[in-house]
């Protein structure tokens, strides 16, 4: 007879289960966002026929600025993890706080964009552009918000001295999620905003 749960065999089996779980979850999220992007692209070809508003109403430079802030938040998150690895506790919660503020700034940017469009009478109900644009950016914004909740919890824990380092499963797992949300935005920004610039 052999003891249960003693030996770890391959690298995958020795990996952090939280990380594997998050990778699987994000694989499903790729499909979810993929369909939203696909719907946007599919209807992009039909705007002209319907006569509704199109992507020329978008404020590309402003959103580019907020995109830079979101991307910067991935860097600051990495700096928080590096601080943990180096045992700099103040760095951990400090950089998490900066990450949190950058994420909030991005959401404010999204809100400004949406309010501007609303003021011009463009809503989720005004044609194919509005429907696909607000759904895509809305679900992305929701994911950013969820990430901020997670980072907020980590920040409070870090400030309370919960992370002693050099490694934290919670921090590493949330990092995967946060970088993924940033990556999705890179795709959305390219498909929606940069393409709008071209057309």
């Amino acid at each position: 007879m052999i003891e249960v749960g003693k030996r770890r065999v391959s690298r995958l089996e020795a990996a952090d289960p939280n990380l594997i779980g998050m990778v699987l979850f994000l694989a499903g999220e790729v499909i979810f966002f993929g369909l939203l992007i696909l719907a946007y692209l599919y209807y992009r070809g039909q705007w002209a026929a319907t006569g509704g508003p199109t992507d020329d109403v978008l404020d590309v430079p402003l959103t580019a600025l907020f995109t830079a802030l979101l991307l910067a938040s991935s860097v600051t998150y990495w700096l928080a993890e590096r601080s943990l690895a180096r045992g700099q506790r103040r760095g951990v919660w400090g950089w998490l706080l900066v990450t949190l503020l950058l994420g909030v700034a991005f959401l404010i940017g999204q809100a400004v964009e949406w309010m501007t469009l609303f003021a011009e009478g463009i809503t989720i109900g005004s044609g194919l552009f509005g429907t696909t644009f607000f759904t895509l950016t809305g679900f992305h914004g929701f994911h950013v918000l969820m990430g901020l909740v997670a980072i907020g919890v980590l920040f409070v824990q870090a400030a309370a001295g919960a992370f002693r380092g050099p490694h934290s499963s919670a921090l590493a797992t949330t990092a995967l999620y946060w970088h993924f949300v940033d990556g999705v935005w890179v795709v959305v920004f390219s498909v929606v905003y940069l393409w709008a610039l071209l057309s």
Partner: protein
Amino acid sequence: MTAKTARDVPLVPEPTVALPSLRSTEGRLLWLSSVDHKQIGIMYILAALVFFLIGGIEALLMRVQLATPNGTFLSPQLYNQLFTMHGTTMVFLVGMPLVAGLGNYLVPLMIGANDVAFPRLNALSLWTLVFGGLLLHFSFIAGGAPAAGWFAYPPLSQRTFLSDSGVDYWGIALLITGIGSVGGAINLIVTIVTLRAPGMTYRRMPPFVWLTLLTSFIILFALPTLNATVAMLLLDRQLGAHFFTPYAGANPILYQHYFWSFGHPEVYILVLPFFGIISEVIPVFSRKPLYGYAFVVGSSIAIFFYSFAVWGHHMWAVGMGFWLDLFFAIGTFLIAVPTGVKIFNWLATLWGGQIRFATPMLFALAFLVQFTIGGVTGVQFAVIPFDRQVTDTYYVVAHLHYVLYGGSIFAFFAGFYYWFPKVTGRMFSERLGKLTFWLMVIGFNLTFFIQHVLGWVGMPRRVYTYLDLPGLAVMNLISTLGSFVLALSILTFLVSIVHALLRGAPAGDNPWDAYTLEWATSSPPALHNFAQVPPIRGRRPLWDLNHPELADYRRAGDAVGEGTGSRKEARTP
């Protein structure tokens, strides 16, 4: 972490026995708050059985309405609600929780683990399913149940045509249960990848574990599609978006593509784990190892890939164009091959075996026949002209019930009777089990076989009544009578459970002389499953332990000992 302080003040009592009695102090709280995979698995299956009864009653009401031509038992509106609720309930609140429940209960035991990787996520997944199901049924008293069919095609499912809240409840309920399903799938994958006992290599995993792993991957990639699609439909209905509204220039066919790119993988979610059950039951009751393990697993991996490339065969009436039609027709023919391969695996396992016709085996054998009928009618749909002839008729109803009831549900009953002694520690009455089996076989075939003919003669599905045309009345009456025999078999099934729980003889650890690790522990299994597991040197570790003179690893040369993972180990017994 701050976990230490949380542990000092427990919010809920810690269980001390495997299955706490509901009557004991805090017994109910111990179940509600449970994060134990066995308790959660049992609750999943109980929830599925409750919804199975509800969905069955909905079906019976429809059969009463259809018993005679020009029936007036149900209003057309109520009939629409009932077939929508029947389909939705059976797929999402019976099929999915059975898959999750069986996987939850069996996988950790079969791989020699003490629990799943994320016990609390497990509890969350269970309760999202239960509350999602309750929310769906709440629609009955909140202004009317959904009435757009279980796939809720727009524009019918748009607010313009169904303005009550039924479809909204449908969408929200599916979103909630869908999140739970994804959580459950992640949990099972991580469990299988990280928690296998030493020696339990991928090539030695029981086929049920393999098929649960593949099913979990299908759930992981298919359910987000459903979530996105349903979210779009809800946005259309609630916020006036235009994903699927033709008058705004949108294309409702997009919904059909999105829905079925979830919906067809879903069909395989609802059969693969049951293939796994059959691959466990048939070898044990034939006293032989599974014939062609590698083919069972390999063909299932093929099904995993094909299942995402055949959705268009639900849409041939739409007119997708020649090339898309061709693509999906070829895919549909191809996916029949790995499914057929497994039928031959099971037949070859039976060949020359010492077959014991116990209740689980009877259900498994009926599965083989009925699932094959469902598979044969299924591959006929790959012939596009034939599909266009019978689409949306009772031929489709007969086909899908042969696959999902004659196949999956019969396999579930095979598994239920097979593992019942393990889960409860009690043997059931073979007489009641066999009575249930024969009533179910007769009732099922009486109900659904005739529906092939009904479809041929052109009776459309989802229509609340029919004219008194030649033959329709008598065939529908036969089908309705059959459905009541089927209902009777469910009653004897419930009686057999209650009888076994009250009067059943103690089962012992391994009443069937089975092969896999779940039979190595006590019945019911202890709180933490195993302190120790038998050495795993092949695919039938418990057989090897109990019959060392006949152990698989002694026969390394032939097909049985092959694939023990390590040849060196196999040569040195």
